[in-house]
Structure formats: C-alpha cells, structure tokens
C-alpha cells in the first residue's frame, strides 16, 4: 500500500468484542489528553471506563447505554472521534502507510477482518480526520478510491436528515449516505446499491461492518479493484501488488469486481 501514496493512511480492525462499546479517539497531544482520561470520563458519565492508549490514539470502552454521553464528553474535550463499535477500532494519521502501520503496531493486532487505506487527497485537506476509513455509525466504516462530484448537494440533504458529515471530505458524505440508508431500514446491499443512483462521480467503495465487508464500483469502473479468494480468506486491493505477500496467493482465485454490482462477504 505504501507504494501508492504518502499523504495519509488509516486502518480499521474488527477485533474481539469487549465489555461494552469501544470508542477510538485521537489527540495531537496524547501525553496530556490521555493522562487519567478513563477515570475522568467515568466520573463524568457514571460508570467504569477502560482505556488502552496506542500512540496518538486511545480506545475507551464504555457501557452501551452511556455511549452517546461518552462521545459528547470526549468531543467537548477536543478529542477527535475516529470510530465507535462493539468490535471496530480505527487508527489513522498523516504519513506513509508503512510509518502509520508501524507507529500503531499493526503487526501485533488481530481480528476477524480489517481494512487499510492510503490516500491521495483530491477533495479535502490532508489531515487526520480527512484520512480514510470514515466511520459514521457503530462498527461501520468506508474507504473510497475516486472522487464524488455531487457531495455538496448530498451533504445538505444528509444534514437535513440528521446525518451531517463532520469534514469537507467527499468520502465522508458517502459514508453518511450509507449509514443513513441503513438507519432508515435498508440492508447493506440495498444501501450500497443506492450509491449507484444517488452518488455522482468515480468510486470503488469498500464498506466494513461487524460481520464482513461489501464492495461496489461505479458503472464506468475506472478506479481499479481486484479480489483474491481462497478457502481461508477473501482479500480486496486496488492492485495485485497488495496481495503478493499473502499465503497461498499463487493458487487463489484472483478476479476483478464487475461495475455497478454489489458484492458482500459475511463471516
């Protein structure tokens, strides 16, 4: 992934569920912001909060009922919410993917599935919050190759519906769109299919959920996508280079997803 660009990178890991909901937060001054954060938050929202600090990120585990209060309290402290979920943790920073993976100790992480992304920014600034994956609901995250041309119109529609994106980024608008469709009752397949009608522009999307991940490409499908499948795993990449180190790749089924077609894999 490092070969594809240096501006920022992110990782979503679907790990083991804890005793409650995980909230991943980021700070530019972790030494001061994370010092005693769990105890202070616990006192503020009532209840026990466990904290695991990883470089500029911390994963706080709170009881499900106090999730909203915890997020509000953390945002009030100026911390950036990377993602929330029963199993999902999100780590993202500016810099080369290799360096980002190293500073968070990606090699030592484990889980059922994960998504990584490196960005070549086109539609918004290179910042931590502008990096992918974008998570706009619990255990959901989205990465995107491409650019959307109707994201400002869609941002206004979503804001009116109560799914306002936090950044100027086009991909976050797509993430909010999918989350809004799911919140309105659509299943993931229908929500992803909706992007083909409602989003204008180039995209190859990969959407992670607690149970698996989905893939959809726009009808022109300029943006590359390749899949590898064996009895043991399913992998997605922008190019084969990302698969070259996978076990058994020589005998894997390697194929490209069709345009305007939704694919989904569940565990």
């Amino acid at each position: 992934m490092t070969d594809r660009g240096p501006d920022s990178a992110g990782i979503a890991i679907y790990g083991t569920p804890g005793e409650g909901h995980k909230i991943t937060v980021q700070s530019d001054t972790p030494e001061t912001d994370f010092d005693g954060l769990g105890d202070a938050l616990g006192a503020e929202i009532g209840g026990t909060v466990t904290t695991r600090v990883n470089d500029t990120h911390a994963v706080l585990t709170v009881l499900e009922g106090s999730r909203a209060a915890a997020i509000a309290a953390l945002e009030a402290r100026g911390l950036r919410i990377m993602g929330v979920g029963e199993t999902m943790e999100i780590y993202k920073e500016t810099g080369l993917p290799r360096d980002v993976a190293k500073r968070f100790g990606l090699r030592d992480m484990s889980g059922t599935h994960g998504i990584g992304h490196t960005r070549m920014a086109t539609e918004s600034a290179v910042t931590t919050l502008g990096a992918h994956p974008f998570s706009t609901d619990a255990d959901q995250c989205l990465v995107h190759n491409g650019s959307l041309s109707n994201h400002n119109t869609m941002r206004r529609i979503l804001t009116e519906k109560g799914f306002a994106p936090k950044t100027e980024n086009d991909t976050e608008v797509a993430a909010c769109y999918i989350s809004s469709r799911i919140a309105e009752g659509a299943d993931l397949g229908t929500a992803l299919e909706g992007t083909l009608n409602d989003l204008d522009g180039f995209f190859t999307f990969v959407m992670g959920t607690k149970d698996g991940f989905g893939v959809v490409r726009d009808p022109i499908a300029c943006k590359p996508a390749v899949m590898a499948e064996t009895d043991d795993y399913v992998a997605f990449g922008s190019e084969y280079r990302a698969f070259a180190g996978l076990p058994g790749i020589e005998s894997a089924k390697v194929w490209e997803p069709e345009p305007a077609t939704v694919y989904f894999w569940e565990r």
Partner: protein
Amino acid sequence: MMTATATAQDAVTLDMGSMELREVNSTLQAAAATNRTQFEVLNTLGSHAIAVGLDAEIKVTVKGSTGYYCAGMNKRATVHVTGSVGPGVAENMMSGTVIVDGDASQYAGATAHGGLLVIKGNASSRCGISMKGIDIVVHGNIGHMSAFMAQKGNLVVLGDAGDALGDSLYEARLFVRGSVKSLGADCIEKEMRPEHLELLKDLLDRSGTDAKPEEFRRYGSARKLYHFNVDHADAY
C-alpha cells in the same frame, strides 16, 4: 549487471528480489548491444512497469504476476508473462509479441500501433482502447467498453464481450466467438468474408489456439460518426 547471472540455458536471470526495477529494465533495454537474447525476470510480486521500452529481438520470460504497464512501448521483443498482469499491459506497443498466461486488467494493449498481444485468460474493461494497429487475441472474455475508439488492427475474443463493445469505433476489426452483451455507438455486426476468415485463421494459429474462424462473428464501424451531422446540431 553484478547480479545478473547466466543459467545453463543461456538465459540471463534478473531477480527482482535483489535488483531494482530500473536495473532490470536498463539491462533489458541494453540487450541489443550484447549477444544475449534470452532473459528471465523472477520475483515480480506485482511490480509496475516491468520490461518496458524494449527494442531488440530478445525473449523475456517474466515469471509471476505483474502490476501496471508491463511490456509497455514494446518493439521487436517477445515478452511472456507466466502469471497475470495489471492495467495497461503492452500499452503503446509498436511491434513484437506479448503473451500473458493469466488474466489482464484494464486497458490491455491501449493505443498500441503494432505487434501481437495474446491473453490466455480474461481481459477486463477497455481492452484495446484506441488501438492503432495492434493484433490482440484474448482466449477468455473481455470487459465493458473494449475497443473504444479503436482505429486500426484486430481484436479477437474467443469468449464473451461486455457492454458497449467498439463504441465510437474507427477501422479496427473485432471478432467475437461468444456473446456480446451490447454494442457501443456506431458499432455493428458485419459480414464475414473470405479475407476475414483467412486473417482470423492466421491470428488464431499465431496465438496458439485451435479455435475455428467460422465460429466467430465480425463487428466493425457503421462509419456514421465520422462526419458532423447537421441534424444533430442541437445535441451540442
């Protein structure tokens, strides 16, 4: 050339596990000035731009799969990839032969002026886009928008073609044995005449398949987009 070693078969081995891409390509590009004619490239791991810009009658075997633009701008050389290739294989080839044992990603043979590209697996979208004289033979299927604005040369497909085949086609000839999902603007089926059967037989023979020319249908340009039609002025 410190790490280039000759094997018993007299093929020079270029190992990308220990050599930089530029060193591999500059060795191949300098081959015309040496008496070496056989090369093999190992440990490709999906790397980009392998064996590009060659201009000598040499044979290069690329063992494994490659990334973008393998064998781009080829002249005279024969490049044989034993795995699959990424986007833009043999892009802008002038002459020579490129053979891919596996699949090819988007825009295989794009803009190429000459030579023969054989893909033994499937090719994905935009195969032969803006081709200008190359012959492409795909043993499997091809994806959507293939031969878009193709100007000259032949595209032969033993399997099926995706949507919008030959959109805005000029004078390239398209031969498909299987189904065509849809034809693009100004692309129509045409009569298969004896000279086409003869041409097709030669291409099939050279690409190592025993498919029968009679099993194919020919598609080409209706030539209605060549000139501005005043009745369409309102469309602009």
